[in-house]
């Protein structure tokens, strides 16, 4: 999966318009990054990347790049 494809998946999860996310964006600055989005992120990564994201790992994410790295 390319970074562009991953970003589109994240935009979908956070319900943002296409091409609004960039790797360097800080998660704390993204208004849509709320508890429901976090749960959606866990489910999406399970579905699309077949990886289990734990609550602890989720807390360590600071930027979009961190999520992209985890997605692999």
């Amino acid at each position, binding site marked *: 999966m390319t970074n562009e494809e991953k970003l589109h998946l994240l935009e979908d999860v956070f319900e943002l318009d296409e091409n609004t996310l960039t790797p360097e964006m800080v998660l704390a600055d993204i208004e849509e990054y709320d508890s*429901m989005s976090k*749960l959606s992120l866990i489910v999406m990564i399970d579905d699309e990347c077949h990886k289990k994201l734990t609550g602890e790992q989720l807390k360590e994410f600071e930027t979009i790049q961190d999520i992209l790295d985890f997605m692999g």
Partner: protein
Amino acid sequence: MPDFLDFKGKKIFVTGAAGGMGQAVSALLAAHGAHLILLDRNKEQLDVTRIGLEGSDHTSYVCDLGQIDAIEGLMSQITKEQGAVDGLVHCAGIANVRPLKLSKYSYMVDVMNVNYFSFVEIVRCITKRKAFNPGLSIVGICSIGAFYGAPTKTAYSSSKAAMYAAVKCMAVELAEKGVRANVVAPGSTRTGMMEQAEEYSAGTDSYKQKLSRQYLGICEPEDIANSIAFLLSDKARMITGACLTVDGGKMST
């Protein structure tokens, strides 16, 4: 004084026997003399449950109840090998949380298969002639989630509401055979499923608020097991089509 819950000579089939509630109810029923037929997809944990039980004539079967087409063959095998049963406890279930926007059809079907369709299929098979003894009692593990809305639980709550609706119909249809069917609806209970849910929601306000309404506190698996055993027993002989909530008072507000 005779045992209030006497299951001596009774054969009881327990699905999901490797999980928290399945394990607790199996231990209780075995302690009161039941011969248990245990089923779960997790062989290792199933063996742990079976080995820990009082009595030595319990048997176990490994099966993934998500494979609905395999259930009829398995039930025929169990009837052939174990004979007619006196009780069924359906504890097997999955309690995943998932936002609606990601709850695609395939996910909904997976949840419904394990939580609902497998239950109906087992009841269908177990209520055939020669598969059950007179006075068969069926208990499904429902959830108070069947009665109120909660985010991320469309699949789970729907499956449990469907189970309760099915049990009410079964109670009426099977009454002439002397079969009773009921559900127990637990509130938050200290099991592996709860720990899983807590991993993502423990710190949220809605989760704390939810728990604060469980006025008597968190249920233990043994609390649920006691209610199941009562419904299985002859002491509940006039109870059918009912839902017994075991939720520390949560449904009272």
